[in-house]
């Protein structure tokens, strides 16, 4: 039981870490560096626009 818990914890951590790494690399390739680093301090996205965009 304890062994299974240990293995599951390591496996879950590895899966999530690899997913983040994969998504990061995919995003880095899909967009230009200028766009990804284009945010400006204090800039606003209207909340409704942001929420709508996330759902599309």
């Amino acid at each position: 039981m304890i062994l299974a818990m240990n293995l599951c914890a390591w496996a879950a951590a590895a899966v999530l870490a690899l997913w983040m790494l994969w998504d990061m690399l995919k995003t880095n390739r899909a967009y230009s560096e200028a766009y990804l680093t284009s945010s400006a301090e204090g800039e606003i996205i209207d909340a409704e626009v942001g929420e709508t965009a996330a759902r599309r």
Partner: protein
Amino acid sequence: MTDVTTGQIAGAESAAPTSRRVALKRVLGPAHVWGLGVGIVLVGEFMGWNFAVGKGGAIAALTACWLAGILYTCVAMIDSEVTSTVAAAGGQYAQAKHIIGPLAAFNVGLYLVMAYTMLEVSNAIVTGDLIEAFVHNMGFVGDLDKRAFMALTIVFLSFLNYRGVLATLTLNYVITAIAFAAILVLFVAVKPWAPGETLKHSDLLTGLPYGGLGILAAMHFGLWYYLGIEGTTQAAEEVRSPARSLPLGTMTGMMTLLIAATLTWYVCSGLMPWEYLGQAVTPLYDAARLTGSGPLELLLFVGTLFATLASANGCINDASRAWFAMGRDRYMPVWFGAVHPRYHTPYRSIVFFVPIAILFAVSTPLDQTITLSILSGLLGYTIMALGVIIFRRKWPLGSISRGYVHPLHPLPAALLLLLCSVTYLAVFLGYGTQLLAMMAFYIAASAWFVLHRYKYCRRGDQFTMPWPRPKGY
């Protein structure tokens, strides 16, 4: 993804022209700010504060609790005023950049990152210890690998932060409320209205075993009750109404913590002798076990677990945003200043700290990580106190719009500086080598910034707030 410049929404993911920009998303309200602030800090009631008992006894820990409460009330008031005017992702980093200058801002950014990352590491260590203790108490045989659960805690919460801020902080709000409720239930369960029945203060409180020096020494860990409440400012760029939500969330959070800290001390000091309490890893969970109530033990297991998860969650949120803000300003490589086009999170900064946090969690003792966090926080509070004095001098009341004005200036700043000085002395008494090592690290980092990094910064882009020229300039 959301295009800031044209307001149009792009349906397909593709490389975007440089005239369009990406940004963090404003979706948070005062409750989320309360959840972020209290969520980061409440774990301090479930672990760590009790090391103050080991330093000076239970009475010294209570004295340190209230003195630290004064310190953090000053922090909350000062922070609320400055943040209501400087609503930027870097929080105190952005404030220092605008009010003092780039070198102070660089140092404050490092303090924030170190304080929150070490707090996150402390939370992961406690999660591993807690799960191990719970599994053994349930009668399971075998050696639980704590490192697996430390790593899982860090990675899972980083994953949540990677995917978005609203769900992450809504989760924080819920689990923080449950953790706070657990403290209240434990307080009621030990029948504080019937002294001697469950709580044995008359037998267990032994005065000051190390005299007045113990109170001084206890100040070191007294900060752990409240450390992190200033983290609410990191969400400034993601709050719908910063001028209202941030002061409201921060001040109500501070009130919640004052109550929680006092209740925690009262319950634990009435159930455990100070010699044990001063070195326990999970004092509230241990207190619940001592009541002999199975449901209470389970509730405090859940409460401790939720508190550590909420805190680690908030710390990942805050540390990544501070690092992101420094990257955006080129104080760190600009690569870290990227925002995920779909999730609107500082994804590279989030991923960057995952292996660093795991390495510290599996290799560093809990009291060391707590001390690293406290020291970095103290340095930040010192700059904060100096910063608000400069802020009021350069931009007096009436010269710019402030969402909140803290009262009795400069008394809070003076008190904050005094209490920080006392705490530096307290840390030096117990962890002098660590204090000196950290000072040396920050001095070396400052030298690197001045001599090497600052030439990459776009000096004209530093000041982003729509303020008039400072008084006297």
